[in-house]
């Protein structure tokens, strides 16, 4: 039973395309997050949602738009993809500050 799942695991696309990454958690948590891990392994938060409400919005280009249809899902839409968007994107969820549970990651490659 996967706690936090992401699809797809790999995503290869051309510059300028629009793509989405989906995330689902079955833990009943209220808060979900998106993180970006760059080629140097640096992890940085992008967004967080609490019960479908945007809580954290770091300095992320507005080509990135999170969407939370319900508290179990947080999807990431990326418009007009650029080479610099290539990274691994992690979804996570938590109920409180105790622990964030991470998904397996989506490796995005922009050609």
């Amino acid at each position, binding site marked *: 039973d996967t706690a936090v799942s992401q699809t797809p695991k790999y995503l290869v696309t051309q510059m300028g395309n629009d793509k989405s990454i989906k995330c689902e958690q079955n833990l009943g948590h209220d808060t979900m997050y998106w993180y970006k891990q760059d080629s140097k392994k*640096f992890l940085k938060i992008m967004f*967080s949602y609490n019960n479908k409400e945007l809580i954290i919005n770091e300095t992320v280009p507005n080509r990135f738009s999170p969407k939370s249809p319900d508290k179990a899902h947080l999807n990431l839409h990326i418009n007009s993809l650029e080479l610099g968007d290539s990274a691994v994107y*992690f979804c*996570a969820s938590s109920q*409180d500050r105790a*622990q964030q549970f991470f998904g397996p990651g989506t490796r995005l490659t922009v050609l």
Partner: protein
Amino acid sequence: AQSVTQPDIHITVSEGASLELRCNYSYGATPYLFWYVQSPGQGLQLLLKYFSGDTLVQGIKGFEAEFKRSQSSFNLRKPSVHWSDAAEYFCAVVDFGNEKLTFGTGTRLTIIP
């Protein structure tokens, strides 16, 4: 704003030897601290966490960490490493207000036979 420093980018240890990974944090109040491990091609798994109380915390896979307020440190230790411990290790601190988790830059651990 909180921050985390992991001074060692890469550490190589012989199998069976002891390990210590360093982590220093900056946070205005009592921090909530975490160590996560990322195996190649995998997501992040929580090794252990510190919130309050006993400053020596035990985690999974035989890891432990010690919180030292005076040194703003939360170093990770293991008495005897196994080849399967080869991975990237991340220290992190959470902000109470918005639950924002800030990671250090990570330490890559290589195990040699």
